[in-house]
């Protein structure tokens, strides 16, 4: 049996679906986070170079990956919105931005707390760190530009343009440690070679990233419902009982 995915491109049909799915994603995120914390904080051994300061990695890497990934998904929805002219795509982009900004902030914050004991400084204007800060400004810029334009259609399109242009920053963040001589270390995990860390550490990091992923989906589904409910105010299908 074929499921018609286009059916869910309309806010009216996506709204109840998002409401059904969101709690499952959030519950899964919670379970995965507990497993990752258990392995990362209790089972994984102390690092021979960094001592226990390295345990920041479990949040830092998960948050940093998600900050870049969410941005790409957001830019993807903006592109879909431009090409297909679907309202829901722009709402998805708008729903993702705050969660993306949150993960970017967590990545920067934990990076500072990790930098102090290992590099001796909270902050350096290093290519990786500076481009991650620009990512935070892009998220904030996207949200404030959207909020500043009264007409929703124009707000959607103008902010989407900013998101698309800003997408160039994501590969810059990712490859910054290769292209420039940075204080920030290179990738610990890559598809082309064996990871440079103990397997329990790696497992905890991957499970935590999966938890962050599930959380981001759950939170943005909840937010897209709010956006739909706010925008479709007055629509017949949106009865008071169906509100988020």
């Amino acid at each position, binding site marked *: 049996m074929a499921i018609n995915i286009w059916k869910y491109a309309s806010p009216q049909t996506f709204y109840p679906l998002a409401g059904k799915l969101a709690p499952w994603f959030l519950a899964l995120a919670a379970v995965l986070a507990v497993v990752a914390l258990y392995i990362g904080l209790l089972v994984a051994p102390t690092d021979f170079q960094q001592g226990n300061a390295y345990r920041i990695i479990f949040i830092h890497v998960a948050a940093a990956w998600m900050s870049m990934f969410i941005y790409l998904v957001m830019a993807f929805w903006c592109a879909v919105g431009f090409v297909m002219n679907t309202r829901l795509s722009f709402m998805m982009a708008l729903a993702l931005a705050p969660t993306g900004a949150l993960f970017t902030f*967590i990545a920067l914050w934990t990076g500072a707390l990790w930098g102090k004991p290992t590099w001796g400084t909270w902050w350096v204007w290093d290519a990786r760190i500076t481009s991650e800060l620009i990512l935070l400004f892009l998220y904030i810029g996207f949200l404030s530009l959207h909020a500043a334009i009264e007409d929703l259609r124009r707000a959607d399109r103008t902010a989407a343009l900013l998101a698309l242009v800003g997408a160039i920053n994501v590969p810059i963040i990712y490859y910054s440690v290769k292209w420039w001589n940075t204080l920030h270390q290179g990738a610990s995990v890559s598809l082309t070679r064996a990871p440079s860390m103990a397997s329990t550490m790696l497992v905890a990091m991957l499970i935590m990233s999966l938890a962050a992923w599930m959380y981001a989906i759950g939170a943005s589904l909840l937010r897209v419902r709010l956006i739909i409910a706010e925008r479709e105010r007055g629509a017949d299908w949106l009865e008071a009982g169906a509100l988020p």
Partner: protein
Amino acid sequence: MSWNSAGEFFAMGGYAFYVWGSYAVAAVCIAGELWWLRHRARTLRSRPGLSRQP
């Protein structure tokens, strides 16, 4: 298990401030976002005559 006691676990080998500071801020951020989403949903529901307003 890589710890001998709870005290050793919380001390994080002298890095308690950095490690727990990271985890605490992440937890606060996530709790804050979920609270904010709930708050927005409540405000939306409590607005009177919502379904018929422009």
